[in-house]
């Protein structure tokens, strides 16, 4: 199955693209997508604890199951700023 992955902020710079189409085995979870990038990009791996994921534009956990055509967002910490 295919899912669309959107990359933002520094993740977009690390991976060099804003968007990817990934071909995944049935039964893949959001964590599968995280692992896909962590294995290929050491800098991504280094940030992985601080990343959040979205599934179809809602925050979701690594255990969330993926379906054909899903839209996954990989989100580095948002712009923040000291209060």
């Amino acid at each position, binding site marked *: 199955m295919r899912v669309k992955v*959107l990359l*933002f*902020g*520094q993740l*977009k*710079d690390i991976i060099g693209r*804003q*968007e990817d189409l990934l071909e995944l085995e049935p039964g893949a979870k*959001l*964590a599968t997508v*995280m692992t896909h990038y962590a294995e290929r990009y050491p800098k991504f791996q280094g940030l*992985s*604890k*601080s*990343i*959040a*994921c*979205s599934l179809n*534009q*809602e*925050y979701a*956990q*690594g255990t969330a199951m993926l379906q054909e055509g899903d839209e996954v*967002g990989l*989100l*580095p*910490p*948002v*712009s*923040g*700023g000291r*209060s």
Partner: protein
Amino acid sequence: MTGGKIESAELRSEHCAIVRDPINVAGIKKELEHPEDGAALYFDGVVRNNTRGRRTLYLNYEAYESMALNEMERLAQAALEQFKVRQVRLVHRLGRLEIGETSVLIGVASAHRAAAFEACRWLIDTLKKTVPIWKKEYFEDGAVWADGEAFPEEIRVNK
């Protein structure tokens, strides 16, 4: 979808907007305020001229726009419910912003000021932690993505 290739027009929901042109503060005030309010409170987030003493030239904001608007609207609804304020507005601007320009405006209208202060503080603090908007800071000798604030535990993927 993001600040890059597709420059979307303004996005709006019931209480929120994501815009590319300068934020129309006077227009938002007019839209928000009502004679039954005893308090109208605004947080105006502006582009600062330095980060830890390093001179900033300008900023570029980008977002996961559709999700950002959904998250902002969710915060607006939560604030109305939680703090019992009468009305709220959240507007964020994307793209290149110059020093002194407004990047985010939050308005809260309420019968009494205490609830307005609490709601406004909660809205900006929560927006800064959970709404998917990022900023890149441009300095004289390069550009960096600003260090974001850690996501709240419940939305991190690897705990």
